[in-house]
């Protein structure tokens, strides 16, 4: 073990092999299967029939009316829009709260930092469902938030603020669930900043805000991007929060896919939505990567 392979390419390949191997076999192939499924016909009770069909994709934009005629339907687009909107809100909330916290932690004395990070993760060692249920007790009718209003008498005994079973509750739930995914990567990139250097650089700028936005933000950008992706993408497919806190009133992408694979038993359609979601995310990432590369070139000049 004294020496690693000296050939850099070989060493690189060997280091990448485990991760790529595992994901290649257990993710890429299954996703390939799903991609194939999306072009097949649905079997009536789940599963697929092996004959080519684009029905699943047609179904996204067009709807067969109950009498079987084909009409343009925004129904699924509305669901997609709603999901992107809520995931975006959750991402912003996480960023607005998560960045200052990550920043604060990265400025703590060395031995306290890991403690803070652990403190942030501990709540998430309990089950997501149970945590989400706790929010029902907090936000719900006669819950912890409403209790003072009842005491004071602003709310009658049978009244409610209506915080639960709303989009607000979904946003709180998503933010709560995914915030460590924002704090940890930002912290990881802020923590390595050498603040004495940053301080020196900051003297070049006229205000603290300018220094902050021109020094710290760019330097922590990889962490911010990583955090945003880690929050945004799982939020898009989330279905526990919409179900438990939102009351399942409006479908989101996660619930829609879930519905197609279980209750509606239309695997190809579920697969098609998944492929579209995947494509959207990939396009989004490619645009970002191109923009980032362009910016790097600019900075070099």
């Amino acid at each position, binding site marked *: 073990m004294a020496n*690693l392979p*000296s050939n850099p390419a070989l060493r690189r*390949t060997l*280091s*990448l092999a*485990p*991760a*790529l191997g*595992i*994901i*290649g076999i*257990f*993710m890429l*192939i*299954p*996703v390939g299967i*799903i991609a194939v499924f999306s072009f097949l016909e649905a079997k009536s009770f789940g599963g697929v029939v092996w004959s080519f069909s684009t029905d699943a994709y047609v179904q996204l934009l067009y709807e067969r009316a109950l009498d079987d005629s084909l009409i343009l339907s925004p129904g699924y687009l509305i669901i997609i829009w709603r999901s992107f909107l809520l995931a975006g809100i959750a991402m912003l909330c996480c960023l607005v*709260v998560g960045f*200052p916290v990550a*920043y*604060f932690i990265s*400025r703590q004395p*060395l*031995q306290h930092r890991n403690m*803070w*990070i*652990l403190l*942030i993760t501990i709540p998430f*060692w*309990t*089950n997501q*469902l*149970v*945590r989400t*249920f706790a929010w029902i*007790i*907090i936000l719900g009718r006669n819950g912890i938030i409403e209790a003072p209003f009842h005491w004071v008498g602003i709310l009658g005994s049978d009244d409610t603020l209506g915080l639960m079973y709303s989009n607000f509750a979904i946003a709180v739930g998503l933010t*709560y669930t995914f915030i*460590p*995914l924002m704090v*940890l990567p930002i912290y*990881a*990139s802020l*923590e*390595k900043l*050498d*603040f004495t250097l940053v301080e020196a650089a900051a003297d070049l700028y006229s205000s603290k805000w300018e*220094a*902050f936005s021109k020094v710290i933000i760019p330097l922590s950008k990889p*962490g911010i991007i*990583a955090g945003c992706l*880690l929050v945004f*993408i799982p939020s898009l*497919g989330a279905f526990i929060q919409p179900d438990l806190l939102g009351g399942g009133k409006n479908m989101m992408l*996660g619930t829609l896919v879930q519905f197609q*694979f279980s209750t509606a038993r239309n695997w190809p359609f579920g*697969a098609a939505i*998944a492929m579209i979601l995947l494509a959207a995310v990939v396009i989004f*990432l490619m645009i970002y*990567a191109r923009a980032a590369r362009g910016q790097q070139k600019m900075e070099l000049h």
Partner: protein
Amino acid sequence: MAAIEHSKPKKRRAFGEVPGLGALAIAFMMFLYLPILVLVVYSFNAGNIVMVWTGFSTDWYARAFANEDIRKAAINSLVVATSATAIATTCATLAALALARGGSFKGKGATVGVITLPLMVPEIVTAVAMLVFFSNIGLNFGLGNVILAHVTFCIPFAFMPIRARLDGMDTTLEQASRDLYASDWETFRLVTLPQLMPGVLAGAMLSFVISMDDFIITLMVAGAGDTTLPVYIYSMIRQGITPEINAVSSILLLFSIVLVTAYWFVTRTKPDGKNR
């Protein structure tokens, strides 16, 4: 220059120290721990319904301890999460290092794409896809199947913070180490890894949390006898959640707090030299 243009207060705050941040951090902690507090408090509820407080009791703890199914599920969960975290974090660290230190090569972008793929696919799709695949190739390692699935979706979660840490991490120390004729392995072990540690820790934490929480993929992939805690809880809420689940969660929480405290004391006794 700046000091002349702006009359600064005498006791100059170090750059980057923003007033009120501490208060925000504490408020944030309250936000994080309020549901946990609720969860723990209601685990002592005497009644059968979580939401209606009927009195103090420790009965639910007695039941949780006596409940063989819950115990089995909790052990399964811990086994899966620990193994998946260890494997996924190792794979992710190696991959992140290869990408950050391996120079540029063809297909780098595609490699990152593949590694982060599990993030981009909705869980239910991953779940069905994996189950179809596993059953077609006849893969049947019992709990091993579940661990494999968890490793797969944990890798990107471990990868992201490590990658973020590596991006732009100062390489001068590594070069210095090599200049001093340290072997590559020594350089890695004594210089790179310690510098990378916060990223690795963050990645491992994320993996563990994600693995402990997952139920939809586990629900699908798990075979007979492989029920994990989230799967158990998920199917249990159909009948309404009882304080017993709160009690189990509180026990797990206590367990992790003990671990964390132990960790803190261990790391405190040999201060520094660790990060920089």
